[in-house]
C-alpha cells in the first residue's frame, strides 16, 4: 500500500501544478456564469488568511487568568470568543476541552480534516495526513512520542475524533512559573500544536531564551 501521502500536487515543468491551472479555470467559469461572485471568493480568501492560532491562544490565555472566563469558555466557546471580538460562527459548533493534571486531550478527524479553523486558521499538513488520521486513534501515545511529548501513564489520554459538526479546541494546562504574566505574555506561550493536543505550551524560560 502506498506508504506516504503528500499534501502538495506534483509540480509541472513550468512550475505550477495542473490543479492550479484547473482551479483558476474553474473560478473564471463560475464567476462568468454568475454561480459565484469574484468578490465573495476574494473575501473568502481574505478570511482564510486572516485566521491564525493567535486567536485561539488569546482565549486560552484569558481562561488561564480569569477563572470565570474559563468556565464560560468551557460552557459555550462561541459566546466566550465573541467576548474577545471573535466570531467563530454558529456552525460548526466549537467546544473547548480542558487539560488537567489527570486528563490530556488530543484532537483528530479520522474521516477527513475537520478542525476549528475559525479559531486556529488552516490545519497543519500533518493533521490532514493519512498517517496522523490512522494512528491518532489507535496509538495516540506513539503519535505524541513522535511529537516529542511523553505523557505519564497515570494521565488519561482522551482522543477526540471530530466526526460531526463539532470542532474541538484544547485548553492546554498552564505552564508552571507563569504567575503574574500578562494575558499577552501568556498567549505567546500557547502554540497551535498545544491547542490540538500534540504538544504542551511553551515554558516561560524557553520563550524568553
Amino acid at each position, binding site marked *: 500500500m502506498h506508504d506516504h501521502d503528500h499534501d502538495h500536487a506534483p509540480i509541472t515543468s513550468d512550475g505550477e501544478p495542473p490543479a492550479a491551472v484547473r482551479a483558476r479555470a474553474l473560478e473564471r467559469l463560475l464567476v462568468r456564469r454568475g454561480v459565484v461572485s469574484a468578490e465573495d471568493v476574494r*473575501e473568502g480568501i481574505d478570511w482564510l488568511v486572516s485566521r491564525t492560532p493567535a486567536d485561539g491562544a488569546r482565549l486560552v490565555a484569558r481562561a488561564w487568568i480569569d477563572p470565570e472566563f474559563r468556565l464560560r469558555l468551557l460552557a459555550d466557546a462561541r459566546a466566550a470568543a465573541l467576548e474577545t471580538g471573535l466570531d467563530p460562527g454558529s456552525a460548526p459548533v466549537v467546544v473547548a476541552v480542558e487539560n488537567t493534571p489527570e486528563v490530556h486531550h488530543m484532537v483528530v478527524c479520522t474521516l477527513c480534516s475537520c478542525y476549528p479553523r475559525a479559531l486556529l486558521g488552516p490545519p497543519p*499538513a500533518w493533521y490532514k495526513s493519512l498517517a496522523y488520521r490512522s494512528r491518532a486513534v489507535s496509538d495516540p501515545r506513539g503519535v505524541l512520542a513522535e511529537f516529542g511529548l511523553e505523557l505519564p501513564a497515570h494521565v488519561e489520554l482522551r482522543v477526540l475524533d471530530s466526526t460531526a459538526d463539532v470542532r474541538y479546541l484544547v485548553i492546554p494546562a498552564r505552564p508552571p512559573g507563569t504567575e503574574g504574566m500578562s494575558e499577552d505574555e501568556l498567549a505567546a506561550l500557547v502554540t497551535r500544536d498545544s491547542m490540538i493536543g500534540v504538544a504542551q505550551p511553551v515554558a516561560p524560560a524557553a520563550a524568553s531564551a
Partner: protein
Amino acid sequence: MHDRGGWHDHSPIDRSEHELADWELLVDALVGSLDRRGVMNVDELRRGIESMPAEAYERASYYERWLSSVETILLEKGVLAPGELDAEVRTG
C-alpha cells in the same frame, strides 16, 4: 478509503510546515462561496471526495481532492457541463 481510523500506517508523520499555495486558498474559498450560494454544501464536498477511486484518493494532494470533488458534484448537478472545464483550461 477515507475512513482511516486505526489503519496500519507506520509512515512517520511529516511535520514540516506548508504555506497554502494561492490555488489552494482559491479552491477553499470557492467551496465556501458555493456553500453560501446554496450550490454545494460541505457534506456534498466530503461525499465527492469519498467517491474518488482509491488510487486517485491516495495519489491526490489534499486540495486536489477538494477540486476533484467540486468537479464531480457540479457535474452531477448540471452546474458544469461535461468537458466544459477542460475547454476553459485549454482556452483560458
